[in-house]
C-alpha cells in the first residue's frame, strides 16, 4: 500500500477537513446575519464530498488503507452518502429556525461539519483507535452544539448531562477496548477476530472487556438501561440540534456497532447477542410505554427513538446478512422518518414559539391540509403501518428474528409496537380530529416546504417500492462481512 492510494480512499474526509478549515476562516469575513455565503459553501462542500465518495468507490471490493486503520467498502460509502444527505437536509430544515434565534452562525456550521467528519471516520474505521477518534470528534462537536444557545438554562443543562454521561460512556468503551487489547494483543478489528478464533488464554478478560464495550455502545445508542440522557437532551437542546443528534449519527452508530460486534467480535456473538436481547427488549418496552405519557413532542420522539434503537438491535442480534442487513435498513429508514418528524417541528416553529408541544399540532389539517397529510404519512411510518417504509423496516427485522427461531421475541416486539402505535395515532388524532388552538399562519420557506414534501413522499414511495434499498443494504453488509 502506498501513501497516494491511501490518501485517495480517505479523499472525502481529507477534503472535508480542508474545507472546514477554509470555512472557519472565511466565515470571519462574512458579515450580516444571514450568513448566506457560508451556508452555500457548506452545501457545496457536502456536494463535493458526495462526488469524491462516489468517484473513489471501487465496486465489489473493500479496500483497507493506512495499514488497516481505515476501510473503504460499499457499506461505508452508502452510509457516508446518506450522512451527507442527512446533514444537508438538516441545514435546510434548520436555517429558518436558527436564524430566528440568532444561532445561525459560522460556529454552528463548522461544528456540524466536524460532527460529520467524526461520523465519516467512525463509519470507515477499522481499528479501535480510529473508531475512538471518530467517536470523540462526533461527540465533542455535539456537546458544543447542544450548548450553543448559551443563555438558555435548559439547553445548558442538557449539554452538561450529555457531556457527563457521554464522557462516562467513552470511558467505558476505552476501558473495554483496553481489556480486549490485553486479551488479544491487537487493536485491529479483523486481526482481533482472527485472534479470538484462534483462542485466547484469558477468556474471562475478553468477555469482561466485551461487557464494557456493549455498555459503552448502549450508552451511545441510547438504549435502556443506558438511556437516561436521551429524553433530557432531546428536550433541552434547540430543535435543530436535536434533529442532528437523532439522525445522521445513528448511521454512524450502526456502522460502529457493525464493525465492533459483527466484524471484530463475531466469535463472541454467543455472548453479546444475549446481552443485546435484554437491551433490545427493555428498550422496546420502555420506549413505547414511556412515550405515551409525554406531552412534549421532542420528548416523545426521544422515547420513540429508544424503542426504534431497540428494534435496530433486534436486527443486529439476529446476525447474518439477513439480520445485519435489516438493521442497516432500519437505521436508514429511521433517519428518514426522524428527519421528517423533527423537520415538521422546525417548520411549524417561529420566533419565540417552539411548536414542540403536542397541543401545537391540534387542528393542523385545518391550517394546512398538505402539511397534516405529510405528518400523517410520517406518523404511520413510525408506527410501522404499510404502505409506508416504516412497515418494511420492522418487517425485515422481524423476519430476521423469526429466522433465528426467536418467535416469542418477535411477538414481544410486535405487541409493544402495538402500544407504540397509540401515541403516533394520537398525533394524527390531534391534527385531524381536533380544532386548532391558534390560527397563526404558517410561514414556510419554499425550500423547507419542498424538502418536507420530498421527505414524506419518500417515506411513502420507498414503502411502495422498498426492494432496491433493501438489496443495497444487504449487499453492503455482505461485503463488509466478506472482508472478515
Amino acid at each position, binding site marked *: 500500500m502506498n501513501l497516494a492510494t491511501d490518501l485517495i480512499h480517505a479523499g472525502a474526509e481529507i477534503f472535508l477537513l480542508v474545507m472546514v478549515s477554509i470555512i472557519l476562516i472565511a466565515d470571519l469575513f462574512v458579515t450580516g446575519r444571514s450568513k448566506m455565503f457560508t451556508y452555500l459553501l457548506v452545501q457545496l462542500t457536502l456536494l463535493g464530498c458526495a462526488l469524491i465518495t462516489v468517484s473513489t468507490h471501487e465496486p465489489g471490493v473493500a479496500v483497507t488503507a493506512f495499514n488497516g486503520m481505515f476501510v473503504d467498502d460499499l457499506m461505508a460509502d452508502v452510509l457516508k452518502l446518506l450522512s451527507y444527505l442527512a446533514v444537508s437536509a438538516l441545514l435546510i430544515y434548520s436555517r429558518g429556525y436558527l436564524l430566528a434565534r440568532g444561532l445561525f452562525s459560522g460556529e454552528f456550521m463548522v461544528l456540524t461539519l466536524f460532527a460529520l467528519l467524526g461520523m465519516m471516520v467512525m463509519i470507515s474505521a477499522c481499528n479501535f483507535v480510529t473508531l475512538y477518534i471518530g467517536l470523540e470528534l462526533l461527540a465533542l462537536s455535539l456537546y458544543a452544539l447542544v450548548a450553543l444557545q448559551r443563555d438558555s438554562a435548559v439547553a445548558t443543562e442538557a449539554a452538561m448531562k450529555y457531556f457527563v454521561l457521554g464522557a462516562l460512556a467513552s470511558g467505558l468503551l476505552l476501558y473495554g477496548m483496553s481489556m480486549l487489547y490485553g486479551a488479544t494483543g491487537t487493536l485491529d478489528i479483523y486481526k482481533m477476530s482472527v485472534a479470538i478464533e484462534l483462542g485466547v488464554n484469558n477468556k474471562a478478560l475478553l468477555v469482561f472487556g466485551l461487557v464494557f464495550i456493549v455498555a459503552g455502545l448502549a450508552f451511545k445508542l441510547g438504549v435502556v438501561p443506558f438511556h437516561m440522557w436521551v429524553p433530557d437532551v432531546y428536550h433541552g437542546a434547540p430543535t435543530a440540534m436535536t434533529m442532528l443528534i437523532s439522525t445522521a449519527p445513528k448511521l454512524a452508530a450502526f456502522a460502529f456497532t457493525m464493525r465492533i460486534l459483527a466484524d471484530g467480535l463475531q466469535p463472541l456473538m454467543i455472548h453479546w447477542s444475549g446481552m443485546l436481547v435484554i437491551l433490545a427488549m427493555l428498550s422496546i418496552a420502555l420506549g413505547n410505554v414511556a412515550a405515551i405519557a409525554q406531552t412534549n413532542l421532542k420528548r416523545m420522539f426521544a422515547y420513540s427513538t429508544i424503542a426504534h434503537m431497540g428494534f435496530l438491535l433486534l436486527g443486529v442480534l439476529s446476525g447474518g446478512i439477513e439480520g445485519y442487513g435489516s438493521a442497516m435498513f432500519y437505521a436508514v429508514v429511521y433517519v428518514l422518518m426522524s428527519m421528517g418528524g423533527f423537520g415538521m417541528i422546525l417548520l411549524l416553529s417561529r420566533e419565540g414559539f417552539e411548536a414542540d408541544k403536542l397541543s401545537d399540532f391540534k387542528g393542523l*389539517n385545518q391550517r394546512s*391540509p398538505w402539511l397534516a*397529510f405529510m405528518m*400523517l404519512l410520517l406518523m*404511520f411510518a413510525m408506527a410501522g*403501518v*404499510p*404502505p409506508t417504509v416504516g*412497515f*418494511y423496516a420492522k*418487517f*425485515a427485522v*422481524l*423476519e430476521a428474528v*423469526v*429466522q433465528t427461531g426467536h*418467535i416469542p421475541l*418477535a*411477538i414481544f416486539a*410486535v*405487541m409493544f*409496537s*402495538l402500544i407504540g*402505535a*397509540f401515541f403516533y*395515532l*394520537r398525533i*394524527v*388524532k390531534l391534527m*385531524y*380530529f381536533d380544532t386548532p388552538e391558534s390560527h397563526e399562519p404558517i410561514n414556510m420557506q419554499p425550500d423547507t416546504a419542498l424538502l418536507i414534501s420530498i421527505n414524506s413522499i419518500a417515506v411513502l414511495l420507498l414503502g411502495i*417500492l*422498498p*426492494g432496491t434499498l*433493501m*438489496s443495497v443494504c*444487504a449487499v453492503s453488509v455482505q461485503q463488509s462481512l466478506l472482508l472478515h
Partner: protein
Amino acid sequence: MIFGLPALSVAIWLPIIFGLLVMATGDDRNAPLARIIALVGAVLGFLVTIPLYIGFDKASSAMQFVEMKDWIVRFHIHYYLGVDGISVLFVMLNSLFTAIVVIAGWKVIEKRVAQYMAAFLIMSGMINGVFAALDAVLFYVFWEAMLIPMFVIIGVWGGANRVYSSIKFFLYTLFGSLLMLVALLYLYLQSNGSFNILDYHQMPIPMEAQTLVFLAFLIAFAVKVPMFPVHTWLPDAHVDAPTGGSVILAAIMLKIGAYGFLRFSLPITPDASHAMAGMMITLSLIAVVYIGLVALTQTDMKKLVAYSSISHMGFVTLGFFIFNTYGVEGALVQMISHGFVSGALFLCIGVLYDRMHTRRISDYGGVANTMPVFAAFFMLFAMANSGLPGTSGFVGEFMVILGAIKTNFWYAFMAATALVFGAAYTLWMYKRVIFGAIANERVASLKDLSLRESFILGLLAVAVLGMGVYPLPITEIMHASVNDLLVHVARSKL
C-alpha cells in the same frame, strides 16, 4: 384486460388514482368539483369490475385474471393478483358500495368534502387489493393500509365519541394483524422463502405449528369479523362513524375477516381447523344467540343494527366450520346478502338521522305517516334482515341451517333461534320507529325521500329481492371454488 391494462390492477388502482385527484382539489371551495370527480371515479371503479364477472370461467376453480410481477426480490415478494369464484364477488360488491357511499354522502357531507370522498375511493382500491392479493405480504399491506382511511373517516366525520371509537377500532385491528404478520413470517421460513399464498395451501405443516398459526390467524380475522368475544369495537365504531363509514364497515370490512378464514385459515391449517371446529362453532353460536339478545335491548338504531351484524356474521363463521358445501356456500351467500341488507339499513338510518339528528328509537314514531316511500323501503330491508323468504337474507341463513343439520341437529336448532330473535329485534325496532301515531312535531315535519336517496335504496332493494328470488348467478360462480376448497380442507396436511 381493460384498455390493454390488466383487469385487477385497474380495479385496484383506478379508485386510488381518482382518490388522489379528488384530494388534490383542495379545500371546500372546490367541493362541487371534488364530488363530481369522486362520482366519476367510483362509477368507473364499478364498471371496470364488470368484465371480471363476464369474463370469469365458472367451471374452473383456479385463480383467474392472474398477474404476477417481481416486487421485493430480496424476500421473494411478488405483486401477485388473481381472483377465484369467491373473491371476485367481493371485488364487485366493494366497488358497487363505493359508488353508493359517494352518492349517499353527496349532500350530507359539507365539511372537508374532498378528503371524505378521497378517503373512500382510496379505501375502495385497497379493499379490492385485499381480495385480489395472492401474495401474503401484498395482502398484508392492503389489509393494514385500509385501516388508515377508515381511521380518518370515523375520527373526522364521526359522531360524539368519534375519537375514542376510531382509536379503539385502529388498535383492535392492528393487534390482530400483527400476530398474523408473525404467522406469515413463520410460514415464509417453513416454505423455504415463499410468500405465495397458494404455496402455503399445499405445504405440509406439523400439528403443533398448525395450531399456533391457526390461532394467530384466528385473532386477526376474529377481530375483523368480529366474533364473540372480540366484537366490542364494532358497536362503538358503527355508532360514531358517519353513514358512509358504517355502510362500508358493515357491508365490506366485516367480510374481509370472513374471507381471511377461507383464504388462509381453512386451506393452510386444515387439521387445526378441524380440531378447533368445536370452539369456532361454539363462539359462532354464542354470537348468533347472545348477541341477538343484546340487540333486542338496544335503544340506538345504529347500535341495534351493529349488534345484528355481529349476530349475522356468526352464521357465516358457523357455515365455514361445518365443512360442507351447504355451509360454506350458504355462508358466502349470507356474506353478500348481509352486505346489501346491512348497508341498506345503515343508509336508512342515515336518511332519518340527516333529518332528525338523532338515532334514539324513542325519538321516533309514526314516520310512516310522513315518509311513506321510505317506510316501504325500510320495511323491505327490515324483512330481509329478519330472513324473510323471497329476500336475500333467507337464502344464506337457510343454507347454513341446512348444512348445520347434517352435522349436528342442535347446532341447527340453536342457529334457527336466531331467525326468531332477528325478526324480533328488527321488526320491533321497525314498529317503534315507523308505525303508531306521530310522536312529535319534528317527525310531523319530515320530508320523504329525495330522488337521490330513492335511487340508492331502490338499487339495493332490487339487489336484495333479486338475490332472494334467483340466487343462481351468485352461487354458480362460487361453486367450483367452494368445492375445491372443501376437497382441500378435507385433506390432512400433517
